[in-house]
């Protein structure tokens, strides 16, 4: 499976450097290495959820308890979680650090991913969620750290879109 191990490791190291202690995740191809690393890390609580909506609640609870968390989801998972993002995170000013694998964008071969790919950025924009694209291994640490900093300062969700260039090697 040509998911980049090197870049997954860099992303995971950046999350650790951000003092993330809880990761909620729902498996998706591009996220396999990240989820495995979280699972094998004795200092990380990995919560394998049934649907992405739950992750918004879990991160909200973790934030109110003073613990940093991150969400790993596919962009279709982000789309599935819109109501909790609006009526929990935005309503209650909860910072979320959402790492979203950006399927269905340039280079996508799977037809079923393409509609979600086209809807992702317009929906993020409609919700006024600040968004970083992660395209290059040199940006990973700085952009994740800055995303978390903004989330905490603004008490608002932020999105980090994990691109094909970063996650997929072929």
């Amino acid at each position, binding site marked *: 499976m040509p998911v980049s191990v090197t870049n997954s490791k860099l992303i995971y190291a950046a999350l650790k450097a951000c003092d993330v*202690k*809880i990761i909620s995740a729902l498996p998706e191809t591009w996220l396999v290495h990240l989820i495995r690393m979280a699972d094998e890390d004795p200092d990380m*609580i990995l*919560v*394998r*959820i*049934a*649907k992405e*909506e*739950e*992750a*918004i*609640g*879990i*991160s*909200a*609870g*973790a*934030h*109110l*308890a*003073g*613990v940093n*968390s991150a969400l790993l989801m596919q962009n279709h998972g982000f789309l599935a979680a819109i*109501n*909790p993002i609006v*009526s*929990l995170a935005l*309503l*209650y*000013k909860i910072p979320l650090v959402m790492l979203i694998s950006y399927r269905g964008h340039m280079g996508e071969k799977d037809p079923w991913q393409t509609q979600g790919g086209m809807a992702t950025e317009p929906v993020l924009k409609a919700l006024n969620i600040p968004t970083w694209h992660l395209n290059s291994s040199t940006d990973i640490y700085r952009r994740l750290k800055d995303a978390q900093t903004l989330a905490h300062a603004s008490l608002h969700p932020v999105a980090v879109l994990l691109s094909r260039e970063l996650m997929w090697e072929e």
Partner: protein
Amino acid sequence: MLRADALETIYPELEKHIVVTIMGAVAAELYMLGHRHSFFYLEHAMGLASSMGLGIALAMPTHKVIVLDGDGSLLMNLGTLSTMARYKPGNLLHIVFDNESLLSVGGFPTATATGTDLAGVARASGIPSVVEADTCESLGSVVREALAGDTLTTIVSKVEAIGPKTFHMDLPLLENRFQFKRALEALQRQQ
């Protein structure tokens, strides 16, 4: 059993712990019994009180967290039972008041009115301790027992579809949010 009476019975336990409650009648009735800074009223995002409770329970493993849920809310997020069951935090107590109705929005019947058994769903999801308590006495003793122990417990209590006269709470939701976070931070510091 009236939910208001059930809440009054367990209030001495609730006020000692972290509580996350769903919106509507449950929130208003708990608020009327006496607000505590360790109470969070999730005024929207139906279904997610239990997910929030799970997040808090995992982040604060030495404190008890009580979630007050309802049939309508739980039916919107049944996956939460399998996720809670997967991690089984022993400091989490999940109480479901089942009035078989979406009381706060017109009283339309939920699926528990036509046979869905939430205690059965919780058991089949792998929640290690699932108890049905349909009287104030039994609820009180089951709650005390669950809080004394260290086993993730879901309690399902059938209650009448009767709510408070008013849902008004003199507590802006952001005030509740910041107050609650400070209360949890104070609890964390006590350790």
